[in-house]
Structures are given as C-alpha cells and as structure tokens.
C-alpha cells in the first residue's frame, strides 16, 4: 500500500500479545510531513508497541500503516531507510566511545569512511557532545546518552524521526535542551517527529497535535488547545478554612458551574464564563460567611483531558496497565 503521503498514516492497527493482551487495539491516526505529533499516555498504554510497529521492529497483528509512503508490513526495508528512531532504552554500548557509536551507525547506514567521520563530528557538535566524543559512553550522564541516541538516529538524515519517551529520567535542563533540538529539527529541517511521552508538559510544549492513548485505544486527538477547549473552560477550586463549611461552599459554587474534579478538602466547579466569574465567586462565598483557606483558578490541562476521557488521572494510571506492554508475541 505505498502511498504519496510522506508522513505517517495508520488504519486500524492492532497488536496482541500472549494471553489475549491487546497492547494496541485498533488505532487510526495521521501525521502530516513536518509535523510534531505527541503520543501521550501512561505506562503500558501501548505507546512503545505502536512505535515498534511503525519502525518495523514488530509486525502488526492486524490493520495497516504507511510511514514515508511505505507499508510497514511489506516494505520494511524502505521504511527503515527513511526513518530514524531513538527508542525507550537509549541502547548504547557502554564500552564504546560516542565517536565510535557514530562511526558504527553511519557505516551501517551506508555512509563511506570520509562521510562517516564528517557526519559523526557534525552531529556530535550539534548535540553538544564533541568534547565528550572520545570518552566511553559508560561514563556519560543520562542526558548525554539521550543526546547521543538522538544524534545516532539522525546520522542518515531521516525524514521521519521516532522518539520513544526521549526525556524520561532526565533533569529539567537536559529535557529543555532536547526539546529545543527536536523543535529545531521540525522547524528548520522539516523532519516529521512522532514523539511518545508520559509528560503532559512535553506534549503541550512540543507537539503540534496530540493523540492520547489509553489501554491500546486513542481516546482523544487534536491540538493541545483544541483538546483543552473540548472539555470546557477553567475550573475554580475553593478550600474552606473550616472543613465543616465544605457543603455550604459546594452549594455556593454550584451557582457558577458544573461540579469538577477536586482535592479531598475542597470543592470545584467548571466555570461557564471563565476567570471573569472569579470576583463574583469570592463575593458570594464572603456573603455566605465562608472563610477560605485557599482559592485556585485552574486552566484545563492535558491531564484534565485524560481524566475526562478515561475517568482516571494520567499520573499513576499506567501502573495498573504496565503488564500489558510485555512484548511476548502471540
């Protein structure tokens, strides 16, 4: 099913594992060339299984997909020629240096000896590893390993880049540096980026569009703004100073909107007109003689989107599903 679509097209993709586990359960998505697509979900949701299928490392059980115009099941070699991938493990050889990694990757990708050295140096410079290039990778920090992984994925100038949880475990500074590089790749070089993440902020900051996956199914898709708009406006949460006032506070707030998720000590409503209602709320609570310990206006986040679509919060949602992603082929 070769197509002219230079991005990614997925139709009804399914992957099952032993024990009738549907790690990916019929997903459809489309990523335009040059777009950054954020694939957001908790651990075990099916993100890595999807990436493994799209990068041809794992045959799908059903459905079909094209990457860079090539069928992932029938034209694996063509797909691999057009993609770069930094998978979840940041699989590097601790006994080799950064430069040796680049040389190996470039050589296996078909570059000649002179081009290998030039390309390796160019990419090591770009990811800020030139000074550490001749040190063994065993001594690299997590951020350095991720950057080397990214450099290796770019060695053959792929048009599509798969990044599987590229910033998991990184400190904020390393994370931010990697975001900048990914953004530059998409903006300056026109690289299509398929990025999986369990970090809301990452999807929010980086992705042009986001697909939220839970238990193998895409539960929402759109730009971050669209997704947030879809679930309604801002929420306000009030925590009374006296816990006995909780019920009365709820009655007051009910006049301003529908009940929303809240902390155990507070009460929250989704505001129909947004922040402009805040002053009225404060006045109404004051009129009712309710002293407040805390009042917070909260704009919708992707976690709220996830909560609305799945009934669970993204944080911690994956723990119960983790077993589902064990790659034991059926």
């Amino acid at each position, binding site marked *: 099913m070769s197509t002219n679509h230079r991005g990614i097209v997925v139709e009804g993709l399914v992957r099952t594992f032993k024990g009738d586990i549907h790690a990916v359960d019929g997903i459809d998505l489309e990523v335009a060339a040059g777009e950054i697509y954020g694939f957001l979900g908790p651990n075990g949701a099916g993100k890595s299984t999807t990436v493994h299928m799209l*990068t*041809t*490392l*794992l*045959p799908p059980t059903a459905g079909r997909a094209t990457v860079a115009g090539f069928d*992932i*099941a*029938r034209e*694996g*070699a063509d*797909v*691999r*020629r057009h*993609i770069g*991938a930094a*998978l*979840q*493990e*940041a*699989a*590097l*050889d601790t*006994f*080799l240096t950064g430069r*040796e990694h680049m040389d*190996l*990757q470039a*050589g*296996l*990708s*078909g570059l000649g000896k002179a081009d290998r050295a030039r390309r390796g140096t160019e990419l090591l410079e770009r990811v800020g590893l030139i000074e550490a290039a001749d040190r*063994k990778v065993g001594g690299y920090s997590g951020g350095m390993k991720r950057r080397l992984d990214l450099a*290796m994925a770019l060695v053959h100038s792929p048009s599509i880049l798969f990044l599987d949880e590229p910033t998991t475990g990184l400190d904020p500074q390393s994370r931010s540096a990697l975001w900048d590089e990914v953004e530059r790749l998409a903006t300056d070089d026109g690289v299509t980026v398929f990025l999986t993440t369990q970090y809301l902020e990452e999807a929010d900051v980086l992705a042009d569009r986001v697909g939220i996956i839970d238990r193998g199914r895409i539960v929402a898709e759109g730009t971050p703004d669209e997704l947030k708009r879809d679930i309604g406006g801002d929420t306000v949460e009030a925590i009374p100073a006296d816990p006995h006032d909780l019920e009365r506070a709820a009655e007051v707030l009910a006049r301003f909107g529908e009940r929303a998720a809240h902390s155990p000590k507070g009460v929250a409503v989704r505001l129909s007109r947004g922040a402009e209602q805040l002053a009225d709320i404060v006045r109404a609570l004051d009129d009712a003689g309710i002293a407040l310990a805390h009042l917070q206006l909260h704009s919708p986040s992707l976690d709220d989107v996830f909560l609305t679509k799945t009934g669970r919060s993204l944080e911690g949602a994956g723990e119960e599903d983790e077993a589902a992603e064990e790659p034991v*082929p059926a």
Partner: protein
Amino acid sequence: MTSVLDQVGLVARRSVRRTLRQPALIVPTIVFPLFLLAVNSSGLSAATDIPGFPASSYLDFAITVCFVQGAMFAAITAGTELATDVQSGFLNRLQLTPLTRLAILIGQMAGATTLALLGAVTYLAVGVIAGVDVKSGVGGAAVLIVYALFTAVAFSGIGATLGARTGSPEAVQGAFPLMFALFFLSSMSMPRELISIDWFRTVATWNPASYLIEGMRSLVITGWDGTALWRGVAIGAGILALSFWSASRALATRMART
C-alpha cells in the same frame, strides 16, 4: 548501500573493541585453563606410568585441554554478548539499519574469536616455556592455533543460540557448567582406551568432544595423525554447521522486523 562484508567488518570491529575493553572477560579465559593445567599436570603426572599411556609428559598430554576450555569461554562470551545486546535494546538499534542477520551473527563472533586467539597463543607460549614438545613442529603449532579457533567458532554458535533464544546473559552463563560437564565426560584427562570404568569409557567414546580433543592432542603428542585430525575436524565442522544453523534460527525469531 554497505556490502555484507563491510557490515560484518563494522560489527566485528565493535565486537572486538568491546571484548578487549573488558579485562573481566580476558583474564579468566587466560588464567583459568592455565591454572587447571598446572594443577592437573602435577597431580596426574603419575598417569604417564600407566602402560600404554601415549605421552611421556602429562603436560604434553593435557595442554590441549586449555584450548578446549578457551573455546568454551569464547562460546560463553559470544552468547552473553549477544544476550546483552538483546536485553539492552542494542539489537533493535542494529535491526533499524540495513544490517543483515548473517552479518550480525558473524560479526558478533569476532570478539569471542579474538578472545580464543589471545588464549590459544598464550596457552601455547606458556606450554612451550614450561617444556611442552609439539611433535608436529612449528607447522603443527600453527595448525593447533587454527584448530583451536575453529573449535571456538563452532562452540560460539552454541553460545549465540542460547544468547539469541533467551536474551539473558545470566541464562547463557548458567549453561557453562553443562558444557564443562560435557568435556569432563570425554577423553580430556585420560585416553579413552585407558579409562577403566566401563560407563565412563562408553560415554567418552560417544562424546563428540573426545574427538575434538584427540585431534588437537595428536598434533602435540603424536605428530601428523591424519585419522585423528580428520575425525576432529569433521566433528568440529558438524558442530559448526548445527550451531550456526540454530543460532541463525534463534536470531530470526528474535529479529521480528518486517
């Protein structure tokens, strides 16, 4: 597009670099067989007094055991290195390149083969210094080294099969005692015809490892013995073919890329 030969070269270079940068792999491969040789040749030296014993020095008789043990270490190294690549995800990285399965398999053996070469040269050098008399001369010593490498590569196929199938370095290392037992139940310490326990002699006669050892040993204690060499090489070739076939199948299952 890189040729298969270039691919093998690239993977082999990485494999050799990795191996040579791990003293924990090199030291036991060299020290352990020599240590066992020292213990056996002093403890069992009286065996040369047994009528019909084919050598006047037990050191001459036992030196080839080092080469076989070196081959076993090479097999374990090949297996653990491949299993480590499966476990760490490095194999996935390799799969994303145009690299062929054959190139991975052959390239990955290079480190283990280098280890076996280092071992073989050291055993021979130490043996000669300690008084080993290689009856087949300098040419025979060279053949002995090549024979040891050939055995190491054949056994590395078994290690690679285990590594690819299990994806667990610990599981590969767990197979080491089994391989060791296989060699103990051979003519490793005593010529077959002089083994007095019937069942042991029968097992040693059926054990292909006996013929591998006897082929190697003939170069040291007999000279050029065509029959012993032919048998040993045939057994080695059989193991090589079977082990590479099974390793290739195991790797094909592991590399599920489309």
